[in-house]
């Protein structure tokens, strides 16, 4: 089983690297969207799947990353290579500013606070049209990557590289003592405390990490899409990201990847209006929650026991 999976991963990796050589520009664009969703999903999964914190504002953080990166390139004149990490850091700070006061909350109340944060961000985007372009959105010119004009190929490999790094980072975090702390806090706060794991600081860290991934994804979005439409970062966008991780598998980096890939491709294949894709997303999400809460990866490990035993989440 292990050999099959490794083989599959290797094939996929080769396909990803070779894509610009024989793929259409539409396929390349689609792949880049998938990569962006993977990055966002990994961050959210660490926060929600591993640490058990519900966040309804992940899309807002992604928007913040997108706007910040965009403004840093267009207004401040940074190169994209500098604007991207800077935008990520700004998003992380803003995520911390929410995560710090919210560190004592969980469950429903946390969900509500993140919802409030999302609404506040939406209002802020509308109220500062000089910065954000308001409801009409923000259009950007093609950024340059440290002097190189971003051709299709260069941009693609850049996004692929950042995504690969994000997967690597997420995988490392999950297997580290921090990943264990996240899982501990999620499963039992009392036991975590008995082992000297500080629950609030752990939750805050998870929040910051999620914000960092979201900001990174947003910054990539800026370069790939070239236009930021604020209505694309509303509650249903956050829900879509939650669908990625719920369907893919909570608490697993592989689950984030699988979920993002499958659920980004799906509406493209359906090729219908947004409403149809919403119905399908909603139905898949609801179906998963009710029938298969462990998601794709979780259910597979349960069935095949390929890690040796049915556990989905740890080292």
């Amino acid at each position, binding site marked *: 089983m292990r050999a099959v999976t490794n083989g599959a991963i290797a094939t996929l990796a080769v396909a990803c690297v070779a894509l610009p050589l024989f793929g259409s520009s539409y396929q390349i664009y689609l792949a880049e969207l998938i990569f962006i969703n993977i990055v966002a999903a990994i961050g959210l999964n660490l926060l929600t799947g591993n640490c058990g914190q519900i966040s309804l504002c992940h899309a807002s953080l992604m928007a913040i990353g997108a706007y910040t990166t965009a403004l840093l390139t267009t207004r401040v004149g940074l190169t994209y290579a500098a604007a991207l990490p800077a935008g990520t850091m700004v998003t992380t700070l803003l995520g911390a500013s929410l995560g710090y006061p919210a560190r004592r909350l969980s469950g429903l109340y946390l969900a509500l606070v993140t919802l409030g944060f999302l609404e506040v961000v939406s209002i802020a985007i509308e109220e500062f049209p000089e910065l954000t372009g308001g409801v009409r959105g923000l259009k950007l010119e093609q950024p340059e990557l440290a002097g190189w004009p971003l051709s299709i190929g260069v941009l693609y490999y850049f996004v692929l590289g950042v995504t690969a790094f994000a997967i*690597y*980072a997420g*995988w*490392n*975090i999950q297997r*580290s*003592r*921090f990943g*264990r*702390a996240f*899982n*501990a806090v999620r*499963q*039992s706060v*009392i*036991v*975590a*405390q*008995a*082992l*000297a*794991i*500080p*629950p609030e600081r752990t939750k805050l*860290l998870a929040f910051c*990490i999620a914000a960092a991934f979201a900001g990174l994804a947003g910054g990539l979005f800026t370069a790939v899409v070239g236009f930021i439409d604020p209505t694309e970062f509303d509650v249903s966008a956050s829900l879509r990201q939650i669908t990625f991780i719920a369907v893919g598998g909570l*608490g697993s980096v592989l689950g984030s990847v699988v979920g993002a890939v499958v659920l980004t491709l799906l509406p493209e294949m359906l090729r219908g209006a947004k409403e149809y894709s919403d119905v399908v997303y909603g139905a898949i999400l609801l179906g998963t929650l009710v029938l298969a809460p462990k998601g794709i990866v979780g259910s597979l490990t349960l069935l095949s026991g390929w890690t*040796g*035993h*049915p*556990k*989905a*989440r*740890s*080292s």
Partner: protein
Amino acid sequence: MSLLTLDGVSVSFGGVAAVRGVTMRVEAGEIRGLIGPNGAGKTSLINVITGIVRPDGGAIRFADRDITALAPDVIAARGVGRTFQHVELFREGTVLDNVLTGLHRHHVYGIAAAVGGFGRARHVEGEARREALALLQVFDLATLAAAAVSDLPFGVQKRVDLARALAARPRMLLLDEPISGMSETEADAAVAAIRSLASERAITLMIVEHNMRVMMRLAARITVMHEGGILAEGTPAEIRDDPKVVDAYLGERDEDA
């Protein structure tokens, strides 16, 4: 100076006093038993000491520092560990995951190192794994390292709980019914293990148990609780012969006594 001092500690829940003015001292290196009929307040007392519940009155000192109002994770960091009556393992993990989590405080590296995945993080993780496996060896769990805890029988889970608590390197360990649910042979093995651990690692123990046979063999001194207060304190022989204690137990319907 005693390792653990309780001074007039009281806790009430919704108007019912679970712990009433408990004053006691536990010396370093002791194995102290804590017994009492159901509802005497033993688990509440453990919860107060470990900081899960804040006392309404009184003070608690550990290693000569006040821990009365501290957060549970801070108290644990000071060296107070515990096991749980109903085990409470991380059910979605393996045996190794659980014990590794116990080592959280002792094999440290920062988030940046964790993200990078090599260098310091890898080195420290290796050390952590070695210590965890060594601990599993002590408890005869090494072959089960990769087993999912939810599959394990209750007695084995209790061993994992103990191993995990020990991974945190506590100075004092509060064991909440460590033997309950075990078979005779398991219980005997557990008693031997607990005793040797206490002496080898210089850990002070406070054990809550209903199994009198085990308690008499393990504990050097026993504290008897009744209706939230301390009824008696002394050696196992003294306690066994104390009329107050006999009354309290005969007055309740307690099968294990």
